[in-house]
Structure formats: structure tokens, C-alpha cells
């Protein structure tokens, strides 16, 4: 494996906005928190995950609202294919502002797919959500 796939986990040193699909339209940290837990951790099965198991302790987020909407759309398609067409129908996009010195780490490999990994306490991450966006371009709540 080349350096291209080397883990580039770093502490957040400047305000960084990322987007995460959540299953609630309520801007309540307690309701958002489960979507920022790395529980139900999948097995390390890809080559990169085996090399860097801590990847699975992180949360996968998108770099832009547009990419997060595509992620939500794809999750709905996957659920529908599994016969769970209702799943994620209420899904929203959480806009998360990661501030320095809050114990957040992230890895942004600046790939075209825009996916990043972030690490941090789930309660703090939920508390860092500043807005919720609908799957379309509506906004559901704001601090």
C-alpha cells in the first residue's frame, strides 16, 4: 500500500464545517448524539481498515452539503433495496462546526468523494451541530 492511503488523522486546529446524515429533524443534542457514536462498529475488513483500525472509531462525514445529500440518497436506496424503504425517509443533514481545542480530530484526504473521518466525544460532536438541513434545500433548524 502506498503513502496515498496513509492515515492522516490530525487535531482540528481551525473551525471546520462538515456534514453528517442523521435520522432526526430535531436540533436537540440528546436526539442527535446517537448519530455521532461509533457504536455498532463494523469489522475491520478492508485493507486500509486493517492497517488503521482506529478509522472505525471515527465518524464518516461529508465535506459539503451537496455530497451529504447524495450520501443520504444513497443510504435511502440501500435501505429500499433491503426492503426498508421507510428507513432514512426522515433523514436530515447535520451541519457540524468543529472548533479547535474541543478534542476533535479529523482526517481530510481531500478526495473527490469529499468523505472525511472525524473523531471526538459523541456528546460534544452532537453539540457542535449548528443547523439541520432537509434532504432538499430546506433548513429545519438553527441555533
Amino acid at each position, binding site marked *: 500500500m502506498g503513502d*496515498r492511503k496513509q492515515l492522516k488523522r490530525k487535531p482540528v486546529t481551525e473551525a471546520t464545517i462538515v456534514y453528517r*446524515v442523521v435520522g432526526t429533524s430535531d436540533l436537540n443534542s440528546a436526539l442527535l448524539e446517537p448519530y455521532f457514536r461509533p457504536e455498532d462498529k*463494523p*469489522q475491520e*475488513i*478492508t*485493507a*486500509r*481498515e486493517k492497517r488503521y483500525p482506529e478509522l472505525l472509531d471515527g465518524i*464518516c462525514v461529508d*465535506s*459539503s452539503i451537496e*455530497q451529504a445529500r*447524495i*450520501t*443520504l440518497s*444513497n*443510504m435511502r*436506496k*440501500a*435501505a429500499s*433495496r*433491503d426492503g426498508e424503504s421507510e428507513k432514512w425517509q426522515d433523514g436530515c443533514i447535520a451541519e457540524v462546526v468543529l472548533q479547535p481545542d474541543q478534542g476533535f480530530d479529523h482526517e481530510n484526504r481531500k*478526495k*473527490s*468523494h*469529499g*468523505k472525511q*473521518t472525524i473523531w471526538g466525544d459523541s456528546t460534544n460532536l452532537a453539540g457542535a451541530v449548528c443547523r439541520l438541513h432537509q434532504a432538499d434545500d430546506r433548513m429545519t433548524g438553527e441555533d
Partner: protein
Amino acid sequence: MAYEYALVDKDGRLREDFDRKSDAIDELISIEREQPDATAGWMLLTYDDAGRQVGEPEWADHLLALATKGLLRFVTVSEGRGLFVAGSPGASSGTGRSTSPWFRRPPKVAKRTRALSEAGMVGAQ
């Protein structure tokens, strides 16, 4: 136009990304060899330079089924990049056993063949 390929699970989590689609499919095959059904619900997404998703998600089980039946062919396209495409049927042995070279060849051989293919030395179209 360069593309990137992302293997994403059904929860939207990026599991691995690749510069070549063939490498993504090699990875799927390798995982399934070790843990059958481990990639259930996974999809392969293609992104262009601008970060836009190109086309629809390709389901891992569909890609693996095509590979199993020998219906994926590796072709060389412009810029030296490779693509798998659904090829003509008929490669299946009919025995239910894989005839796909991706199942039969160890990865190093597959990669060597791919490199040769990209160089226009074998089997490229």
C-alpha cells in the same frame, strides 16, 4: 477526466477508496473470499474530478455476481485508466463455479495482468 471510486457501506460510511475501479473490485473479491457476505449492502460510487457522483451506485453483490459469471471484462480507456464493463456472456462454466479470472488468479497476478493490459500488451480493447 479522472475518476475516483469509493466503496461505501449501507450506512454511508466510506470503507475504502481507489483510483481504479479494478482495484475496488479486487478488494471486494478479497473481502468476500475471507468473509462471505461481508460486503452485503455495499455500493461502489464513482466520482469525477469535481466531486460529483457519476451515475448510480453499483451494488457490490451485483458486481461480484458479474465477476463470478465472468461477465466483467477489463478494458483500457483513454488516459491509461481501466474500467470493468459488463461483457458478453458465455464465460460461465455452467457448473456454478467461478470462471472469473478475478477469482482464480492471486491478486499479484491480476495486478500484473492489469498492468500489461494497460500497456496494451494483452487483452486490452
